[in-house]
């Protein structure tokens, strides 16, 4: 049956050479409790591809066609979106949801469509020997947990012994991801780890903050998303928890998370995987996309943290397409070629400069065995007076000696339970 469908699909594609274009589905969520994060990301993602179309005539001469689909951060809707868009020749999926990612990993692997979960999704997908079709460069949750702990070590002269750290997390696959890494790190560095789950969608956090108020931990780490972030920062302000000791991961550090708490949010820290500030490419987007009336959404998210991250995700996809086009010598690439392109992707500082986004992310190379990238992150701090994020550190590297064995262990367990044969990456 599948073969029949594939043949029909192949027939369709062969019959329509006029449809030569690069199809990029955008599984966005502009509704529901997570829309605050979903909208700017999707705006950035779409605007960048529209910029490439308008300014450069697409990638390698091929126009990009974006196929949008609303998931509302709901896994069932995400599956529906995946099924309804994959037939159009989708090159890459970036669902921006760990729950949807877990649904799509087996499906995309069988269908042979690459999945890029940038800094979210299944952490152990970094092991390319097991997860052939899944990529999570430039970093993952375990990296970000390790980066935050490394930052704290740096702040405390190399020792966290006896310190108490609370992890306030979204009670879902997303929020539970860092727990294993933090447990290993807590043993290694001797800090006490307390886990405080917050249930979907995250508006009810009274109990959790009561406990934080009672125990006064040295640090609170947050793995939140959507409305949970705003509520947590407000609650922290209410109990006068020092913002300098409250650190969010890279999904808990956007403008809309901190603005509602007003001046009380000043000093809140968060991790970021991309740079902030004025990038030259934003002027191009303004000129070619927004002034031409093609802006995604209402167009007022340009330059926000998540907008830049969406644009960064689009840039990585576009660069992978370009790499694939060069590797295979054709401009109209297939999902399989796209995968090859992603696996040989090399992002250098010069290239980012050339693209008008210097320092937007770390320089890295993807390899057959390592789909995870370097996992570096920056710490940024909220300046409530100017309503902007200020980068306070350079890119901090995670402790690979901690995360690598965990990735190895988890991916091997997955390979065993799903009967996956390891790829040979040696040659």
């Amino acid at each position: 049956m599948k073969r029949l469908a594939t043949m029909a699909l192949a027939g369709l594609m062969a019959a329509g050479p006029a449809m030569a274009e690069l199809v990029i589905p955008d599984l966005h969520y502009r509704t529901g409790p997570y829309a605050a994060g979903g909208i700017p990301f999707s705006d950035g993602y779409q605007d960048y591809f529209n910029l490439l179309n308008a300014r450069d005539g697409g990638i390698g001469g091929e126009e990009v066609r974006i196929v949008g689909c609303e998931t509302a951060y709901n896994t069932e809707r995400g599956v529906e979106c995946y099924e309804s868009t994959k037939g159009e020749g989708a090159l890459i999926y970036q669902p921006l949801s760990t729950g949807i990612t877990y649904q799509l990993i087996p499906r995309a692997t069988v269908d042979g469509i690459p999945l890029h979960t940038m800094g979210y999704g299944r952490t152990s997908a970094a092991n390319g020997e097991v997860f052939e079709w899944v990529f999570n460069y430039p970093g993952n949750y375990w990296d970000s947990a390790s980066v935050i702990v490394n930052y704290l070590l740096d702040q405390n002269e190399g020792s966290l012994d006896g310190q108490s750290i609370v992890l306030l997390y979204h009670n879902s696959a997303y929020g539970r991801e860092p727990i294993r890494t933090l447990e290993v790190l807590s043993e290694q560095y001797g800090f006490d780890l307390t886990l405080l789950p917050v249930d979907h969608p995250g508006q009810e956090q009274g109990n959790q903050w009561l406990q934080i108020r009672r125990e006064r931990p040295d640090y609170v780490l947050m793995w939140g998303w959507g409305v949970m972030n705003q509520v947590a920062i407000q609650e922290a302000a209410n109990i006068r928890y020092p913002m300098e000791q409250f650190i969010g991961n890279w999904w808990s550090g956007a403008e809309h998370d901190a603005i509602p708490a007003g001046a009380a949010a000043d000093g809140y820290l968060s991790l970021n995987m991309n740079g902030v500030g004025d990038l030259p490419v934003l002027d191009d987007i303004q000129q070619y996309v927004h002034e031409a009336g093609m802006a995604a959404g209402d167009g007022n998210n340009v330059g926000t943290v998540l907008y830049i991250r969406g644009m960064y995700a689009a840039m990585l996809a576009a660069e992978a397409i370009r790499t694939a086009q060069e590797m295979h010598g054709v401009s109209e690439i297939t999902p399989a070629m796209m995968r090859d392109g992603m696996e040989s992707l090399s992002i250098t500082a010069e290239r980012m400069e050339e693209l008008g986004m210097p320092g937007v992310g770390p320089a890295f190379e993807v390899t057959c065995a390592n789909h995870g990238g370097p996992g570096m992150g920056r710490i940024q701090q909220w300046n409530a007076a100017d309503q902007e994020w200020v980068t306070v550190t350079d890119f901090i590297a995670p402790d690979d000696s901690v995360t690598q064995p965990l990735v190895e262990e988890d991916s091997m367990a997955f390979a065993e339970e799903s009967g996956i044969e390891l790829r040979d990456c040696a040659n």
Partner: protein
Amino acid sequence: MFYREAGDFKTSYAADNQTFAIRFDRHGYYLLLAVAIFVVPFVINDYWANSLLIPFLIYAIAAIGLNILTGYCGQVSLGTGGFMAVGAYASYKLMTSFPWMDMVSVTLLSGLITAFVGVLFGLPSLRIKGFYLAVATLAAQFFLVWLFNRVPWFYNYSASGQINAHERSMFGMAVTGPNAEVWVKYLFCLFFVIVLAWVARNLTRGSIGRQWMAIRDMDIAAEIIGVNPLRAKLTAFAISSFFVGVSGALLFSVYLGAVEVGEAFGINKSFLVLFMVIIGGLGSIFGAFAGAAFMMLLPVFLKIFGVDMMGWPADIVAHFQLVIVGGLIIFFLVVEPHGLAQLWRLAKEKLRLWPFPY
């Protein structure tokens, strides 16, 4: 003209009691079954199966289950999502603890486990009624979701707290897991739908169904004429939960493949199934199918109409969907409380008289 009962003589009690008394109906039903079994599997593609047909079949089972409890026995339940979660987690535990077990047994056993849990939560229904029972079942919903989130044993201590369906085969064909062909999944769900709908239809028109309806219409009067309320209510809870559990198990193992309890089986799921029952028609097996089809098709229809044809932004269409569903529920409650099933019945009445209505 085409649709009539004239000349369709019944010569035995069995013939008189059959579900589809009119020959045209009966033939239509057989034709539908034949198409569903012998034609659809050969023409189905991934999109139709995964976006429409498989969820429709699975939710139809849940809607039948809730209809037994709410429509036939009159016990309002807001715990459907929680009971579906019981079915899903039961099938996960069975699949991982007994890897040799076939999926039909796993699914039926999950239904039985859910039936047991349903009876436990049904016990208070002997004392509390109406709104108060709705609140008690709401508590079941939140308690069950909390339980599956809280106790790691249920998800085999996995780091992400998710449960994943591994590949299981029947007759050499993968039924679950990513390698399962869609037509296998479709037929597997269809098998359960046909069998369970047949069981439900025959239960509801037999002695036990009449007891349920007596309790629904007036419980004191029912008790006086000799209906045991304990037995009637608990059987309704058990059988309803069995159906809901089977649908939860199928939703997890066959359709989704990976489930996070709060997200997949939250309160929204309870409302979704309740809306299916209300829009479809309380106290009607056909209504359960109609409601499930309606609630599954509406978003897809709106998406195709709004986004693909009219080119409206996807978020506007998604918001409109909420407005339309809400409006329709109010409309049905006001204008036609018996739902789509009643519209269908009226249409049939008209067709019987057509072209000479009196």
